[in-house]
């Protein structure tokens, strides 16, 4: 199809879509008038389980099953990336170059690393009482580790990042969520029911299973993002296409694996 024909088909379709969407928006309820029916029920339900962060209650208690699906989407996206970005038979791996970093940059990055890691863990742990939770804190913690790439170089990052451990951590986070749900079934309740004591409102231990599920998601997201970024960074820094042979080949690369074996040996 020519670019012109494509554009016309798109424009005609988009015009129809715009009319439809405008019609829908006109019929939307007016902004900020009536209390939202679900909002009222969700707040009541959250408070009944002593969870002061209502959003965490919706995510990890009322609709915890959705969150299981969402966590699994990330889990399988990482798994899919590991599969798709594996070292192909005709690619080879080269040792990353050591980099020289200005001492000031290094000091600042290391300081930020410690702070960011702490903030990430804090956000995961306090998901039930203040904004945040496993998804947000997990991303912060995982990216914090990568400040080491700035503070030192890729080889330093690889040393603090034993990928095997993070892959197991990712699977453990996924499994922990499922097992928490199954434990409720074994306790004679519904799957993912909040069976733990609710604690006092606004205390760190409040919310029953909400902090447990938050921690499971935090573990999964932290490890998952580390594995995900590692795969992309490997492609950018270490893995070379057949033609682009400028450094000494580190590995003939006919194993079809991820080269982790070599890395672990190194």
């Amino acid at each position, binding site marked *: 199809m020519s670019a012109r024909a494509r554009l016309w088909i798109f424009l005609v379709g*988009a015009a129809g*879509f715009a009319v439809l969407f405008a019609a829908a928006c006109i*019929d939307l309820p007016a902004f900020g008038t009536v209390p939202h029916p679900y909002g009222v029920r969700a707040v009541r339900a959250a408070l009944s389980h002593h969870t002061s962060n209502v959003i965490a209650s919706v995510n990890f208690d009322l609709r915890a099953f959705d969150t299981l699906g969402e966590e699994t989407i990330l889990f399988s996206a990482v798994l899919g990336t590991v599969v798709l970005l594996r070292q192909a038979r005709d690619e080879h791996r080269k040792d990353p170059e050591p980099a020289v970093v200005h001492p000031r940059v290094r000091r600042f990055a290391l300081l930020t690393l410690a702070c960011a890691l702490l903030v990430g863990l804090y956000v995961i742990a306090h998901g039930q009482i203040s904004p945040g939770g496993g998804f947000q804190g997990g991303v912060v913690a995982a990216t914090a580790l990568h400040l080491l790439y700035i503070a030192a170089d890729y080889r330093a990052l690889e040393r603090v990042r034993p990928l095997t451990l993070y892959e197991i951590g990712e*699977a453990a986070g996924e499994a922990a969520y*499922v097992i928490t749900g199954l434990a409720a079934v074994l306790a004679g309740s519904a799957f993912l029911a909040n069976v733990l004591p609710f604690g006092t409102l606004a205390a760190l231990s409040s919310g029953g299973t909400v902090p447990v599920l938050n921690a499971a998601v935090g573990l999964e997201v932290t490890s998952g993002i580390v594995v995900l970024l590692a795969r992309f960074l490997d492609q950018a820094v270490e893995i070379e296409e057949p033609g682009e042979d400028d450094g000494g080949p580190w590995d003939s690369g006919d194993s*079809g*694996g991820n080269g982790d074996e070599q890395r672990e040996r190194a």
Partner: protein
Amino acid sequence: MDTARLLPLVVAVPLLGAAVLVATGRRLPRLVSDIVGCAFAAATAALALLVLFRAGHPGPGTYPVEWVGGWRRVGIVLVGDPLGAGLAALVSLLVVTVLVYSWRYFEEPPRRHTGSFPALILVFQAGMCGFALTGDLFNAFVFFELMGVVAYALTGFRVEEPKPLQGALAFGVVNSLGGYATLLGITLLYARTGELGFAQIGRRLDADGPDGLVLAAFVLVTTGLLVKAAAVPFHFWLPDAHAVAPTPVCMLLSGVMVELGVYGVARVYWTVFSGPGGLSHPDVTRALLVLGVLTTLLGAAMCWRQRHLKRLLAFSTVAHTGLFLIGVAVLTPEGISGTALYVLGHAGVKAALFACVGVLLDRYATVDEHELFARARELPEVGVLFAVGGLALSGLPPFASGLGKAAAEEAAGHTAGWLPALYVLVSAVTGGAVLRAGLRIFAGVGRRPGKEEGGPETTGEEEPETGGRLGRIPVPLLAVPAALLAASLALGVIPAVASAVGRAGALFTDTGGYRRTVLDGHAAAAPAHLPPHWQLTGILLGLLSAALAIALATLAVRRPVHTGAAALFAPVRRLQSGHIGDYVAWLVAGAALLTVLTVPGIR
């Protein structure tokens, strides 16, 4: 245990299996990780079958309803109505057979990641089962996305070549856009009703009359589901993805995932939009019927023109999805139950055909009909399976695909008298295309096709998916297609299956009964219904389409290709350009077309 308690476990067990495989996959040898994968898939299948048997018990009774986390009306509900539970069981059983088939199929999996293929398949299973069982619109979207994410990765599994990645990318982009449309529709419904459950949204909508918002929500939600169902003009991703995906993945994509898109359309319509606050029946019938007829005609025409066997089967899936959409479009319990039986039979037959193609790809490193001419004479067993598959695809009694086709075409005939003719024609053409390929490849009948015609998009040069040619064909590669065809045959002749499917269709279309069962906990008695059964007209029409398929196939192999016909199809064929921009333009245009077709619904 209470049957309802089992519903979430159908999703949880495969997810646990995937986590176990990812955690231990680095240490386990391949055989062990394959066995672990099969065990978790089989356990899930057992759970799904248990739910189905308890829910599908004939006589007055209810079906299991489970509020996850115990949050009645505030949380997410899973509903084990016979149709949803039956689909979950179908998905799970097919996943088990696919895992058995892949046992000896792939070359060495990614080193130190032996568990990654079965783990992805298990997550795929969880996503599809969750989608079939959920009674919540947003939850359905989550599982829709989960199915998508896994399917993109599985499609691009063979990273050594560029084509799988391109196919996976087109699949990913088009399906994600469809997903956004669905999400936009969900937000509109949520803004209006403050609810996310099918039953709750439906009840709230029925309090007011339909308006532009309801129409837009229907169009947007349905657009995403139709992308998954590969209805014209949202279908372009499907042949591109099927041509490049590993064969075991094709078995799942064609066998059940695409059909779940049709199921989603039917489920959302019957639970949310079928009341007085939704859209009127004639408008929805018109919209789905037009798309269904376009889909089935285009699919059949393109199917006939293919030489690449996987693309041929992929377009036959498009054609059959069109027929399924027509069965849903007539909006009757008979249409639903006939289509459900058709989907059951089709899943077994199509997966068996893909399994046969996998054997060819292993032996000859090509799936091109012309290159394979007479080369597979040494594989008579595969040839017989392939031919039986082609006949079953054309609706030969007593296969379940034949009974489903007969029941669906009879139901469609009540809406428009010419629809049964369409069922016969499309079944004959798709079955005939398979038989034609079978005659050429396995029997070497007719003239050796010339080398001149056929652009790169129809030929079938492929890398084998197995590591080097397998010495002797491993038992699973033959046993799996044979078992699938036998299952398809058994489902067609066991009367209990047909009567259970009839009851499932009646409960599925009973909107009031569904809402009462989910929200009020009243037992929904199955409304009066006539289960699909063999009738003389159905048998005759089935025999007719099978005979037509044989006639078309013999005619095609005896006579040289008409260049005139090829020129006639060229513009249609060129639409399948492989350009993602084209596919996106068609998707937007398709949403607009759906709007135009449904617009009188708000009056």
